[in-house]
């Protein structure tokens, strides 16, 4: 029982981390109809910039207050992500208005290559660390109920709370503001959005900046947990089933999807894995998403795919 609860809890926490990455996908998709394959690369470059700036800035400015250093590094990284957003809009998206989904998808793959290369040239390709003071040691609760207590990772818990806050804010933004509405309009039809005066350029910069910030937060959390290295970019792959399970266009979907996938994957690995040799969690997550989609092809909370003649 205790073990089950621990697994469950571990799954929920992992799920929240996935949600955070998934959120980046959903944001850009919802607001511009682009399936942003570069989200993983953005997480990596954001984490790299945070790691390196928090190392460099105290050196440049001669401060040794860790908190101040981290705050400055965060600010610098945020600016960096904004610059990327501007560049992406200026050199890529602007020229691909009104193109099909596959074309845009491909372009984001190009962007992801570019960012991978650029990030490592600027910031290096070794392992770096981010230390924002996340609690690392395990905590044990309910000592009285279970023998040895229940293992809870405080780090995961902190991360989950941050993720939840972020998601709630963004969900609100989309549903209840005029800008949110405009973003959704852009996703539906670039040309029509232009025709009524929605400035695509500005919208895209905003969206990519926000997605960049989400990537930064995700990068900091993942990075402080695992260290910052090229491999972080592949974390995005773990978030894909979350995105489609929750629905490509749904911010709350990213959360619920994340929890389902996180729990499903951990339970499957722990309880089914041993019978088939283990290592099943990745494909299990995808299969889980697939099975859900068979019942709801647009994901749990996604918008229905409209086709009428």
């Amino acid at each position, binding site marked *: 029982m205790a073990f089950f609860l621990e697994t469950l809890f571990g799954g929920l926490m992992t799920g929240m981390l996935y949600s955070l990455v998934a959120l980046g996908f959903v944001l850009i998709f919802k607001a511009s109809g682009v*399936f942003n394959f570069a989200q993983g690369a953005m997480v990596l470059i954001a984490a790299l910039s945070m790691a390196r700036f928090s190392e460099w800035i105290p050196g440049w400015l001669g401060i040794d207050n860790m908190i101040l250093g981290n705050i400055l590094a965060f600010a610098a990284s945020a600016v960096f992500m904004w610059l990327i957003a501007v560049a992406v809009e200026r*050199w*890529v998206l602007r*020229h*691909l208005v009104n*193109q*099909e*989904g*596959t*074309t845009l*998808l*491909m*372009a984001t*793959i*190009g*962007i*992801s*290559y*570019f*960012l*991978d*290369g*650029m990030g*490592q*040239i600027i910031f290096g*390709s070794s392992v770096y660390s981010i230390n924002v003071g996340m609690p690392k040691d395990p905590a044990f609760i309910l000592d009285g109920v279970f023998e040895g207590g229940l293992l809870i990772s405080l780090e995961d818990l902190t991360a989950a709370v941050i993720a939840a806050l972020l998601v709630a804010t963004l969900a609100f933004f989309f549903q209840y503001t005029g800008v949110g509405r405009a973003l959704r309009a852009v996703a539906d039809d670039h040309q029509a959005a232009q025709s009524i005066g929605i400035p695509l350029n500005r919208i895209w910069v905003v969206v990519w900046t926000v997605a960049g910030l989400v990537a930064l937060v995700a990068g900091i959390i993942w990075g402080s947990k695992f260290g910052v290295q090229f491999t972080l970019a592949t974390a995005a*792959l773990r978030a*894909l*089933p979350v*995105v*489609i399970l929750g629905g*490509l266009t749904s911010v709350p979907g990213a959360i619920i999807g994340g929890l389902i996938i996180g729990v499903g994957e951990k339970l499957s690995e722990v309880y089914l894995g041993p019978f*088939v*040799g*283990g*290592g*099943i969690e*990745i*494909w299990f997550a*995808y*299969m889980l*998403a*697939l099975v859900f*989609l*068979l019942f709801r*092809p*647009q*994901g749990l909370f*996604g918008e229905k*795919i409209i*086709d*009428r*003649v």
Partner: protein
Amino acid sequence: MFYRENGQFKSTYRADQQIFPIRQDRVFILGLLAVAVVAVPLLATPYFLQAILTPFLILSLAAIGLNILVGYCGQISIGSGAFMAVGAYAAWNFGVRMPATPLVVQILLGGVFATLVGVVFGVPSLRIRGLYLAVTTLAAQFFVDWAFLRIPYFTNYSSSGNVSVPALSAFGLPVQTPAQRYLFVLAFVVVFALLAKNLVRGAIGRQWMAIRDMDVAASVIGIRPVYAKLTAFAVSSFIIGVAGALWAYVHLGSWEPLAFDLNRSLQLLFIVIIGGLGSIVGSFFGAAFMVLLPVLLTNVPHFFGLSLAVDTASHIEHMVFGALIVFFLIVEPHGLARLWSIGKEKLRIWPFPH
């Protein structure tokens, strides 16, 4: 001036239905084939044959397969690496367990197994569409990766999970030197490209495209989505499976599931999109872009006598590569094949601007 179809009238539909209705094109293609079969093996260095042309051809073949699914039938798949793997491992298992099976038959059987698996993973496409489907194809990718890593039967209980093929020969001829390998692969590619072209310009090809462009209208015409989608998955995975077997047998010789991982799938998808969705030649252009460009990029600094550290070079290569993808998409979102045909159109009216 030279590229005009003036005066080339067609009096029968048969003539109009040739693959290359314009004479200059036919001459060009025959010439190209002659060069590929005769001149290239004689003139190209072993390195060029083995490390560039052979993978280029095999990836073109796989891309043709994927193009049938993605470009013609509109079902985006990021799981094609899995079907390559199935092709490779199935062929290998026939080779190991029934050593008498001729090489070509082994490879084709690899294709057959890939077809079976492809159809199974194609079934969700009847309900799931678009990007959702694309992501679910990753289920195939990860499942197959896992299966070949974890199920020892498939690797004939090899302790490391790595498998390899003995020296190859087909029809009593050795397939060993770079030139032999190249020609062996070339034969497959030419034959399959032709078959694929026949399919896509025939009735079944129209069904696929109809499903891609407007599935409701297609079913109103009497096209069965089930049949169209599953045949697309089948044909596509067959070709991809054969390409996978060739990749394993001829290019690598020894491999592990990693050779067909997600990166391979993505690479194929790039090839297809950059080359041009729904275009057989596009698959070749795309593969050339993907295979040649990185090699060029690594070698360019040498030409200029620059010596960059390999890691910087590789990062710059990534950046240039990414930038070029974006550049070509901006110039022509429909891929290199479209660029090519626009070029031809311009050539046709040259020297007039319109």
